[in-house]
């Protein structure tokens, strides 16, 4: 059996969700590593864009900022933030990749404040491009460590829309139809969303994890329709390419999952 850490696990599992030819808006860190790995293994024709303006670069290293020079190496275009956001608004981006401090059962994300807005206990960066991505890209993918503080029944601030209050709520708010959260990949499991209730649903459990582990780390009731599948563990090839080609300087894979 291969050994790997939580971050490697999340990256490898996340890298498998893209069809070849999919388009994706990417941030720094884990999402970017996952997309780079996907491009090398599963989706050579994946179209990568960054909100600072770069389209389809050949990434020479992990970006530190979504606007830094790594995103411009052999890019096909280095345009504007509005260019990228309008590409998403036109319906051209299949996947976006997000993190967040809190997530509720509808996939709504908080990356703004913990506590009262006016005098918060903790202030986070805010939306950045996340709200735009999650409003207008077709599918939202989240890659976050699993904890009871993060997966909570009532988040303090909806920075970024998941399914809001449930079925039909996105459309009623004015968001484009047929969009919304798609998968959540954590260090414990892969979750999707129930078609009917738009609530988070367990899909597969990572090797060595029990359903109780997941329940104990989730602050709301997770829909479990049947005995969930086992997640395929990271393959030797995934790990080799991730470690040797995607993140040789261990910029991401040796960070601690907070």
């Amino acid at each position: 059996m291969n050994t790997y850490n939580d971050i490697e696990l999340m990256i490898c599992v996340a890298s498998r969700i893209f069809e070849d030819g999919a388009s994706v808006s990417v941030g720094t860190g884990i999402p970017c590593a996952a997309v780079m790995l996907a491009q090398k293994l599963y989706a050579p024709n994946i179209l990568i864009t960054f909100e600072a303006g770069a389209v389809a670069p050949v990434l020479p290293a992990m970006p530190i900022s979504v606007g830094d020079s790594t995103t411009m190496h052999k890019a096909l275009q280095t345009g504007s933030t509005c260019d990228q956001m309008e590409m998403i608004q036109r319906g051209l981006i299949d996947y976006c990749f997000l993190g967040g401090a809190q997530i509720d059962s509808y996939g709504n994300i908080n990356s703004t404040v913990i506590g009262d807005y006016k005098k918060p206990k903790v202030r986070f960066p805010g939306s950045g491009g996340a709200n735009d991505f999650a409003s207008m890209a077709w599918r939202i993918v989240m890659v976050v460590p699993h904890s009871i503080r993060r997966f909570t029944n009532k988040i303090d601030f909806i920075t970024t829309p998941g399914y809001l209050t449930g079925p039909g709520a996105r459309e009623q708010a004015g968001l484009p139809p047929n969009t919304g959260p798609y998968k959540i990949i954590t260090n414990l499991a892969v979750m999707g969303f129930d078609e009917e209730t738009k609530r988070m649903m367990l899909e597969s459990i990572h090797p060595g994890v029990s359903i109780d582990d997941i329940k104990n780390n989730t602050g709301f009731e997770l829909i479990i329709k049947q005995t969930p599948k086992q997640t395929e563990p990271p393959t030797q090839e995934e790990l080799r390419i991730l470690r040797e080609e995607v993140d040789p300087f261990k910029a991401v894979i040796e960070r601690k999952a907070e």
Partner: protein
Amino acid sequence: MESIGELLGFHHPDEMREFFRKKSKKMTSKLTDLKQAVSLVKEGDYISIGGFGTVRIPTAFIHELLRAKKKNLIAACFTSNVDTDLLAAGKTFNKADASYIISFEALGAPKVLKKYFESGSIQLTEWSNGVMGWRYKAAAMGLSYLPVRSMLGTDTQKYSAAKEVTCPFTGMKYLAVPALYPDVAVIHVHAADIYGNSYIRGVLVADVDIAKASKKVIITTEKIVPTEFFRDNPQNTTILFYQVDAVVVTPYGSYPCNMPYEYFMDVDHLREFLKAAEDEKTFQEYLDKNIYNCNDFYEYLDNCGGIRRLEYLKDLESQIIIEGGLR
């Protein structure tokens, strides 16, 4: 949904038309120095910084602004990190439009400034990066708003100053995002002529629109080029002279950030900044050493390793953007 955030940086397009009408369209030299350029920033001004947080920001200008002890500004915290974190460190602003604040993206967040934002000293209006981009675009188009499909249904909408409108053709609900006309914008570019025609290489972020939207535009540039650089290849013109009020030559003016195709960011120095920002005292020492006790930006560059360090960052940039891999 009704929004409850304060509307900042908004003007009626007719008022802006009168302003832009009076602004000179003559090609006259706008070359000046940082001190003069900083003096264009007035108490109460709404200020916008170009670039993308750790990329192509006008660090030299911001240091000078801090030394000039400017206060009571309103800031656009759009895709921002090193830029508005420095502005926050100097306590230069007490209101802001916030779409991304504090964090240095993949590198972490300066704790002292996080606390400062948590203290409530700065009154924020919430937005997303895309919507801030569109607010500049609305202004750049000469409008008071643009309809967009973002931010709807969230607390980000609630704490913004956007409104909802209905499409007269489809009945669709849109978010109407109000135009953002800054009083002053500061944009760092690769090259400019003395009139203000400016060239940006690599991602533009929102800078083309910011330059069109702003009442005053200050350009800091790596170097001056003759106007023929633009006239011989108009593709090079990212910003036109008649939008510009001041041109200041600031070589390495974006250090410690990344100037695409010129020099990469100094990750070690940014980490030093973050480490200093772990507590108030060490952060004040960092600011004193690198900003307040420096007479000019060259002293700061010398503090950070001078020409040897800059040549290293130029080499690193070449590896990333030309060679496509670290040696």
